[in-house]
């Protein structure tokens, strides 16, 4: 389970606050120290953690706690509230163009899962009776086009490619073909690139300008560490990011990168990748994720008992 360790940690800490009549600033500090450590161990970026803990502390020390009869309960609630707020409060839907096709661009670091996620997304759309077109715009990685073609074939989704030609031209031509063939979604798979690679980042900007995507999804590996903020920030600065795909959530990572990326981009996580197979893909449920962080079931019991 993702976040399992984190939730156990937070619960252990917060349990100690249960049943206390009133909280002193010291109590809050002790609890929040544990929260801080747990979040850091979960790979949430240390600056994000700092802000988070500060917000929670302010709220804890505010009147609502001191006047509350059960402050322990209040702290738990505040941590949970803030975490939920940070993760985003409801499922974020895929943007849709009023004049089809809807154009979706997948971007991200090398190996994060763009190609796989592009295929998975096309599968999801196809199951909903849509007619997606996959576009192979990675001209660098060895056999990247072939990879997308194999996946497209498996899923019976058409794949547009122009070999190693300029990906901007490929994307443009693909859009034209989609219009001709009445594909209502166009999903562009781009090459993995470092956020500090100016040349390749500029290439993304050119593709964006050429096809004006309705959705630019940053694909992020759930195992990403502290660097997630740098990556997300750079992509956000250069592109009109609209959402995030969090991949490899079938691992046992605590996945704190989700919080970091969300905090720096403000973009909702829209999908979760849960395996290597093309059907291991789901809408991302932020409140479920936040609940998972804290082990919501138990938190609710805690609150009832407190």
């Amino acid at each position, binding site marked *: 389970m993702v976040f399992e360790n984190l939730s156990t940690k937070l619960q252990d800490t917060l349990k100690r606050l249960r049943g206390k009549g009133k909280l002193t600033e010291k109590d809050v500090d002790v609890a929040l120290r544990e929260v801080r*450590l747990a979040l*850091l*161990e*979960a*790979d949430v*970026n*240390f600056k994000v953690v700092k802000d988070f803990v500060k917000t929670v502390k302010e709220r804890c020390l505010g009147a609502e706690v001191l006047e509350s009869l059960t402050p322990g309960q209040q702290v738990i609630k505040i941590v949970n509230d803030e975490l939920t707020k940070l993760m985003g409060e409801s499922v974020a839907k895929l943007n849709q163009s009023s004049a089809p096709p809807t154009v979706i661009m997948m971007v991200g*670091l*090398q*190996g*994060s*899962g763009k190609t796989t996620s592009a295929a998975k997304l096309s599968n999801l759309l196809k199951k909903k009776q849509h007619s997606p077109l996959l576009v192979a715009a990675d001209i*660098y*990685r*060895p*056999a*990247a086009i*072939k*990879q*997308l*073609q*194999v*996946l497209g074939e*498996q899923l019976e989704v058409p794949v547009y490619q122009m070999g190693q030609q300029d990906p901007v031209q490929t994307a443009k031509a693909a859009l034209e073909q989609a219009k001709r063939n009445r594909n209502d979604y166009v999903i562009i798979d781009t090459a993995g690139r*470092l*956020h*500090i*690679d*100016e*040349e390749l980042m500029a290439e993304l900007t050119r593709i964006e300008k050429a096809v004006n995507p309705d959705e630019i999804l940053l694909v992020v*590996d759930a*195992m*990403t*560490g*502290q*660097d*997630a903020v*740098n*990556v997300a920030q750079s992509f956000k600065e250069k592109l009109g990011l609209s959402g995030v795909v969090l991949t*490899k959530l*079938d*691992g*046992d*990572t*605590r996945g*704190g*990168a989700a919080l970091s990326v969300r905090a720096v981009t403000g973009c909702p996580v829209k999908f979760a990748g849960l395996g*290597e197979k093309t059907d291991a893909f789901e809408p991302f449920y932020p409140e479920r994720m936040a609940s998972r962080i804290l082990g919501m079931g138990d938190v609710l019991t805690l609150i009832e008992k407190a």
Partner: protein
Amino acid sequence: MGIFSRIKEGLKKTRSGIMGRMEGLFARSSFDDEFYEELEEVLIGADVGVETTMQITDSLREKVREEKAREPQQVMDILKGLLLDILGRDVVPLELSEQKPTVILVLGVNGVGKTTTIGKLAHRYKNEGKKVLLAAGDTFRAAAIEQLEIWAGRAQSDIIKHQQGSDPSAVLFDGVTAAVSRGSDVVLCDTAGRLHNKANLMEELKKVRRVVEKALPGAPHEVLLVLDATTGQNALAQAKVFNEAAPITGVALTKLDGTAKGGIVIAIANELKVPVKMVGVGEGVEDLQPFDPIEYVDGLFTESHTGGQV
């Protein structure tokens, strides 16, 4: 060229973050709580992890006190020393076996850079005048075989492959056997990416290892775990579990050309005593280097912003 300063031609990049912070950190005149707090942030920000970071800063406090260190340079040297105590000071190369072929088995979770690292290694050995054979043991991922074929072409190496979906053990068995009969010097075995918490896939890996050994007693001579420098604390769990399934002889740390520092290797070295042997610094054939701990640690402390100027 330093590990962190190896920059692809034409690739302009801006490094910010921990390097600049480190310099600022050691520019101060007193080593108070605030200093240690900031140092903690720098180490945690480099993915060293809370536990290892605390251990390092605790030892540093103690040593600074013992040695009555006051000068920034002194404190910095102590800190570097502590990190090198963990990482080791020597460059630990990939070992070639006395009798050929040397079999190198490459493992890791999905997308970390296994296949690319194999391609770069093949190129390296080829340049040393060795006869190299690649075995396409990833029979699962779409176009994994084609990807390795392209690398084999780049490195002018032989490749042994089966069809997608076939038994990976069988491919690697054939690969090693072919290498023996062809008189290859080095066999590089690719495997499919797998998350370490998937029991069935880890079982498959154990079998792969056994079969390689069966094909050539004493093989695999090296079991290289590939870790992505952008990975956070999960890399420690990866190292532990892979090490149980197929004892690893070294780590290859990839994607160090980004802004991530890969500090988790410090925690891994601390716990598992497995050396980092290679680092990946790009996507080209040349972008692989031996891991030099002193250079790595120096890089952690001395590199400043390149500000886009290469």
